[in-house]
């Protein structure tokens, strides 16, 4: 059965379900929809972005309480009275309030590294919960009642069956927005957050901004769910916005498959139905009343994480054939290019660079220059400090002392993102790619700075023109390095040598004037090395400056215009390839002393 048919079947089922289901089942479906919206936000935040939050229920609460307060409050002050009465204004204000709170919390907590972030979300999850319960004007622990029902086109949606369509329209809208976002320039940046931050920053992605963005999107989804909840239930109290419900939302995302949009729906469905069922049966079985379903949920979660960490969705999709990945090579007009610097102009100048790691001096008074239209090779034995030098120059790490000038401008204290913006692009010695994305998508990350459309236009797919040009550019670079046949394959399935070549395509996609290549020929076969050398010569001919770290001496000596030799962090020789090869200090370093 083709996947399109499965999707149509699912949509058709959604359409007719409320016509045939019982009152109780419709209510259950409504709740599944509400929870799925929150879980979708978590898919984006946790599954894709790698940021774990236990505090989403608090954002649901913000959405619910804002509209509850505005649509029931009698005594709003004069200037605010126009905000009262309408659920739609409640939604708007709720979104604004949530965005503001999430932005502030995000600014504070997203800076937190690793495990501090989820602990932070637990903390503000608890804080907001107790706040809801203790603020007099929000009804304290008893809550607020008398919230009006939604009205749409003059129809009052008091009935769960009618409300159902609003809920599921919102769910499908959220699915659409999330999928659009992930399939875009911003989406690639977001997908790089998990395991590719150093690489993404070196390609010019502001990863801190991406984090705040997905945090905001997830919070706003939660807010919409809360708004719907308030008008469905027409009563709010603090209970559904506590930390335990926040944990449940995360469970939904993980059980369904945190990295998959549809996983959120599956997870919300499974957990909600299971919870209902367990709440019916467990107290009878155990002869006591209480929320015993948490025992089952806890054990189930442990089991899922031990046995099927990717959740249910990947298991289900085994039974449904996946849509063939798009095979058509993307077409689009060329992106604008930066003007190329004149050949022979000095691009990069490192002056007396020192890099110390504690007591270890990895770079000791290193100086080198790279001109436009030349290949400069940096060679030396393993551990000589070549890659450290690369990191200092490209802003991945900062030099302890010394100065780095790029096109005449001091870039010593700039980060890798700022340096990338100035036209330097690089590859990594230990390949840094996103193995579950296609080669084309990986390469397109290199072009990040050549697009400008943001999250909102990505979610609404208003950036298709720019996206097509970006992908077309990426496709051209993939072809240029000779990986055309693997363009739509997953980057993780390439051989190591090809992965290195893909990194070159990614660097080229950024339209650099200086290319830093860290061991590009390692793992390549003879013929592949030949074509790589040919490509680099061509780039040099076009006026690009290339700084190269390489161990393959045949490759280096046949290609480089000038060579710098390092040993123990210091420069021991510099000159034309022939001179360097005869230099006694270099022979000593490479071959040991000749007595």
């Amino acid at each position, binding site marked *: 059965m083709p996947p399109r048919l499965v999707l149509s079947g699912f949509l058709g089922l959604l359409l007719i379900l409320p016509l045939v289901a019982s009152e109780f089942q419709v209510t259950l479906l409504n709740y599944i929809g509400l929870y799925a919206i929150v879980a979708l936000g978590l898919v984006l935040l946790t599954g894709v972005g*790698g940021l*774990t939050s*236990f505090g989403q229920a608090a954002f649901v609460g913000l959405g619910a309480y804002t509209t509850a307060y505005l649509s029931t409050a009698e005594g709003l002050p004069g200037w605010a009275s126009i905000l009262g009465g309408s659920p739609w204004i409640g939604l708007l204000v709720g979104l604004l309030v949530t965005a503001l709170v999430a932005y502030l*919390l995000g600014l*504070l*907590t997203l*800076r*937190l*590294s*690793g*495990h*501090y972030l*989820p*602990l*932070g979300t*637990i*903390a*503000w999850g*608890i*804080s907001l919960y*107790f*706040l809801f319960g*203790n603020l007099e004007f929000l009804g304290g622990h008893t809550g607020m009642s008398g919230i009006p029902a939604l009205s749409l086109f003059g129809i009052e949606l008091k009935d769960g069956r009618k409300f159902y369509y609003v809920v599921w329209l919102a769910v499908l809208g959220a699915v659409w927005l999330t999928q659009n976002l992930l399939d875009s320039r911003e989406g690639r940046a977001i997908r790089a957050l*998990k*395991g590719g*931050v*150093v690489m993404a920053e070196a390609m010019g992605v502001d990863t801190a901004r991406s984090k705040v963005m997905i945090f905001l999107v997830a919070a706003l989804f939660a807010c919409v769910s809360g708004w719907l909840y308030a008008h469905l239930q027409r009563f709010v109290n603090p209970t559904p916005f506590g930390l*335990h419900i926040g*944990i449940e939302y*995360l*469970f939904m995302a*993980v059980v369904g498959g945190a990295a998959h949009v549809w996983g959120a729906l599956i997870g919300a469905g499974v957990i909600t139905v299971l919870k209902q069922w367990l709440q019916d049966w467990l107290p009878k079985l*155990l002869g*006591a009343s*209480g*929320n*015993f*379903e*948490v*025992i*089952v*949920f*806890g*054990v189930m*979660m*442990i089991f899922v*994480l*031990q046995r099927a*960490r990717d959740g249910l969705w990947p298991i289900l999709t085994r039974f449904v054939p996946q849509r063939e990945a798009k095979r058509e090579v993307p077409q689009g007009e060329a992106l604008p290019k930066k003007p190329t610097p004149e050949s022979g102009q000095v691009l990069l100048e490192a002056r007396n660079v020192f890099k110390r790691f504690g007591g270890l001096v990895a770079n000791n008074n290193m100086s080198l220059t790279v001109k436009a239209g030349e290949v400069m090779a940096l060679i030396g034995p393993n551990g000589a400090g070549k890659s450290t030098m690369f990191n200092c120059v490209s802003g991945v790490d900062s030099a302890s002392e010394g100065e780095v000038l790029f096109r005449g401008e001091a870039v010593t204290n700039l980060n890798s993102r700022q340096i990338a913006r100035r036209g330097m692009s690089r590859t990594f010695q230990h390949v840094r790619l996103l193995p579950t994305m296609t080669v084309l998508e990986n390469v397109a990350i290199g072009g990040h700075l050549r697009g400008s459309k943001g999250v909102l236009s990505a979610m609404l797919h208003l950036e298709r023109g720019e996206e097509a040009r970006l992908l077309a550019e990426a496709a051209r670079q993939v072809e240029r390095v000779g990986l055309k046949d693997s363009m739509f394959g997953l980057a993780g399935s390439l051989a190591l040598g090809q992965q290195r070549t893909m990194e070159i395509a990614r660097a080229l996609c950024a339209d650099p004037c200086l290319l830093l290549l860290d061991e590009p020929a390692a793992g390549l076969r003879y013929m592949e090395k030949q074509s790589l050398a040919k490509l680099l010569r061509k780039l040099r001919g076009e006026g690009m400056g290339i700084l190269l770290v390489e161990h393959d001496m045949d490759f280096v000596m046949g290609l480089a215009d000038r060579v710098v030799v390092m040993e123990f962090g210091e420069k021991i020789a510099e000159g034309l390839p022939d001179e360097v090869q005869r230099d006694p200090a270099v022979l000593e370093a490479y071959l040991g002393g000749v007595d």
Partner: protein
Amino acid sequence: MDLQIALLLGQDGMTNGAIYALLSLALVLVFAVTRVIFIPQGEFVAFGALTLASFQAGKTPGTLWLLIGAGVVVALVDVTQALRSGMPRRILRIVGWNLVYPAAAAAVVFLLKPGDFPLLAQIVLALALVVPLGPMIYRLAFQPLAEASVLVLLIVAVAVHLALVGLGLLFFGAEGSRTPAFSDASFNLGLVTVSGQTLWVVGASLLLIVVLFAFFERTIYGKALRATAMNRTGARLMGISTVMAGRLSFLLAALIGAFSGILIAPITTVYYDTGFLIGLKGFVGAIVGGLASYPIAAAGAILVGLLESFSSFWASAFKEVIVFTLIIPVLVWRSLTTRHVEEDE
């Protein structure tokens, strides 16, 4: 507020702070050794207190059933594994710890009527029931995931917490319990009266901290734990079993947790879910210490205790809001001062 109230609040804060300090030490220990952020720590507090309360009420504590159940599951898992890896000689030890020990505990509880025991014996028996749950939980929930990322381990920890809270409700019911004070003595020090229980809590906490310090400095197992905390691979190469280190750290955490519960049971009514908030406050302390430094964690925990008791005076409804909002600036300060080499989750 006059001086008398301030002193009274200070005494309250110090008492709670001492408990939080104990818990924060356990959290730092578990995190350092296993990278698990031990959210279920609080459940051990509740289990310790409620088990003791059950004895005193002449009831059979539910933790006994939990011990027996967990023992059976661990025995099943471990015996299967021992047979599969062709090491049947391990079975005797597995059965001994996981089946015979719980059975012996059950025999003591049913045959000897612990309700009539002196307090000290009841405390020892309560610890004997609750503490082995620590390593058993490590075996079942965390050991199979020992190499997973901190975040996965954290989600598992949250899952374990949920399961234990649910079990706590099942075994102990929704009613809270309070145990009689260890001592009814009180000392009049001019402005304030210091209760004997306060002295017990602070004294016992200090004693436990000293014992732990000696354990880590003087014993081979303590040193093995420290070595694992510093460098897992290195410790393993030196022949220290990381599984052993994991179980031992969970044993200690369970001991500290249950003992803290027994200490506070006479001061505050303990419900099945009380432990969570207590544990989290220990956390705030542990995080002040960056989940790495024992003395700073303990100091932070005492600070949390004082903050809590003073804010309960000024704005009692917002006590929890204040304590947990405090964690955010602390976290920010922590993540700004610790240089984190980020990559790969």
